[in-house]
């Protein structure tokens, strides 16, 4: 017998639509979950899956090795960077948890609840349609038999009636199930808004993740900057004097004080101190040691020329000369004055030096004054010492090599200051003054 179409045309259209939506949801769900990195049973296990966590782990180990106090900037930075990576990992995990809860979970309920209901209704419809068709068949047969000659009309028509009743029942059942299927499928289609909401939730979760991740990183940036900025173990050569004093919490530059103290112990009677060059490799070594902030001056105890050379080099490598660019012109003008006028002219200029420069210049001059007092042994008179030291104390902006034209004026200035140290820097500062 002929079979009825299970679905009417409109239901077929809806079913096609359901199929497409189902396919779309499946694809999204698959891609989304395969993109999640932190999978596992516990939070710890999930965090471990993230690359940020393993980077953080490595950074924390590094900071433990290096130390996180003033002894290692890198150690401090590793610690901060490790914290940032851990925070990033936590944000990533939170993001993935949110995606699972707000996007993947609801999508999954389509496959767990909505689609099975449709499928069930669909199966039910097929079955009831089959039942209806068989009732139809039986009815046709019964009608045909009732029309055969010699049939008990009454019996036959009773049977036809009974089967007809069954057929009607089956037909109304099909109708009923068809309606239920239509309802299920229409409801499913109507959920497109809900599905769309899931995608909005996804993008919102991404936005929240990026925002929090950005916050986590941005919180650490100023901390890292501050650590680097205030690092007392910054290289000292070529670093700005004020900056060096600030980060080390000092008044006198570390190179200046260490060299001066060493020379006071061992170099005051050395002939040609500051004039005779030390061995270049030793000087480089001492300089590198200062930059690394680990210096054993003991090694240079018997090498005063290297120590003096390093001191000169330090002054020469300051980004701005100790006597400043700002006062260059004034100093040079004073240098043109006669011997009697130069000393009083220099005093107000020197007093204009910024405090860090003033303190360090005074310290150096007090030391040089003392050095000159032993000039019968070391041969370094104020004139001699000025010639070798002056080019390291003042140069003009943009001048890279000692300028032969200004060397004479510079020496005149420094000679005047060293010879009259007590006039320029009287009283209170009584460094290196010996009482007997």
């Amino acid at each position, binding site marked *: 017998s002929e079979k009825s179409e299970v679905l009417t045309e409109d239901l077929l259209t809806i079913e096609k639509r359901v199929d497409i939506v189902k396919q779309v949801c499946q694809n999204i769900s698959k891609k989304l979950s395969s993109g999640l990195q932190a999978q596992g049973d516990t939070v710890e296990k999930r965090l471990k899956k993230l690359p940020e966590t393993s980077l953080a782990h490595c950074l924390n180990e590094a900071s433990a090795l290096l130390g996180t106090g*003033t002894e290692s900037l890198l150690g401090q930075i590793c610690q901060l960077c490790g914290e940032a990576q851990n925070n990033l990992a936590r944000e990533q995990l939170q993001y993935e948890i949110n995606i699972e809860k707000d996007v993947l979970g609801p999508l999954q309920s389509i496959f767990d609840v909505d689609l099975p209901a449709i499928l069930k209704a669909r199966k039910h419809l097929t079955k009831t349609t089959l039942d209806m068709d068989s009732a139809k068949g039986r009815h046709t047969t019964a009608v045909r038999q009732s029309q055969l000659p010699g049939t008990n009309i009454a019996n036959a028509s009773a049977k036809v009636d009974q089967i007809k009743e069954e057929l009607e029942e089956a037909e109304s059942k099909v109708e009923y199930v068809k309606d239920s299927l239509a309802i299920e499928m229409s409801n499913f289609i109507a959920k497109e808004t809900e599905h769309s909401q899931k995608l909005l939730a996804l993008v919102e979760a991404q936005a929240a993740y990026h925002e929090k991740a950005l916050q986590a990183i941005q919180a650490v940036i100023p901390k890292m900057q501050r650590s680097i900025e205030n690092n007392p173990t910054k290289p000292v050569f070529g670093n700005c004097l004020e900056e060096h004093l600030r980060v080390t919490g000092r008044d006198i530059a570390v190179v200046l004080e260490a060299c001066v103290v060493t020379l006071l112990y061992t170099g005051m009677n050395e002939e040609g101190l500051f004039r005779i060059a030390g061995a270049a490799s030793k000087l480089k070594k001492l300089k590198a040691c200062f930059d690394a902030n680990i210096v054993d001056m003991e090694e240079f*105890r018997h090498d005063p020329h290297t120590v003096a050379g390093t001191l000169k080099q330090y002054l020469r490598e300051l980004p701005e000369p100790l006597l400043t660019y700002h006062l260059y012109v004034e100093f040079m003008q004073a240098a043109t004055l006669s011997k009697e006028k130069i000393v009083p002219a220099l005093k107000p200029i020197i007093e204009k030096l910024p405090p860090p420069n003033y303190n360090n210049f005074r310290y150096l001059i007090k030391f040089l004054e003392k050095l000159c007092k032993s000039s019968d042994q070391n041969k370094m008179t104020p004139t001699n010492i000025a010639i070798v030291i002056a080019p390291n104390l003042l140069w003009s902006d943009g001048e890279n090599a000692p300028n032969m034209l200004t060397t004479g004026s510079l020496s005149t200035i420094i000679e005047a200051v060293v010879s009259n140290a007590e006039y320029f820097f009287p009283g209170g500062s009584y460094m290196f003054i010996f009482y007997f």
Partner: protein
Amino acid sequence: MSMRDVKLCLLGDSGVGKSSLVMRFVTDSFKPALESTIGASFMTKTVEVDGNTYKFQIWDTAGQEKYRALAPMYYRGAAAAIIAYDVTRESSFKSVKSWVQELRHQGHPNIVLAIAGNKCDLEDLREVRLKDAEDYAKQIDALFCETSALTAVNVADIFTKICKKLPSEDFSSSRVGSTVNLRKKRDVKKEKKCCGGSPS
């Protein structure tokens, strides 16, 4: 009669009166508003104790240096160190303990330690009890005096005491200068407190 050179270094917080103590000892004078020491200053003074002559070479260090990076240069070769605090400032007494620790670790094992509680003329403002400081000094085997650079009380005495305590053999000249290390750790662990009193 022999003369013995004694290298000595003064340590302690900024403003406790290290330079004033040295001024009082060396020139027997006092300036009320001495400007703070920049870098370090060096002075010598010769004294006679029990018929022996001692020539002190005194390094007076700057107290405000944050990392004490160059302090070892001054105390490493020293035969004696005076660690000064201000009896009117509890925090300066705490610093004494950290200096003692540093000297125990980095200084010469035979260095003679003396603790000076300066400004003892300011009794009204006292924050550090005499007995606490005395007990602490005894515990670490250091000489101790409360001093006043203003009134000169005990200033010469502390140097005399140091002369008497110097070991007979001179070790001080063996090493001058030293490591400059800005990287060393600065966290000073608290000294374990003695429970006090002898077991009955």
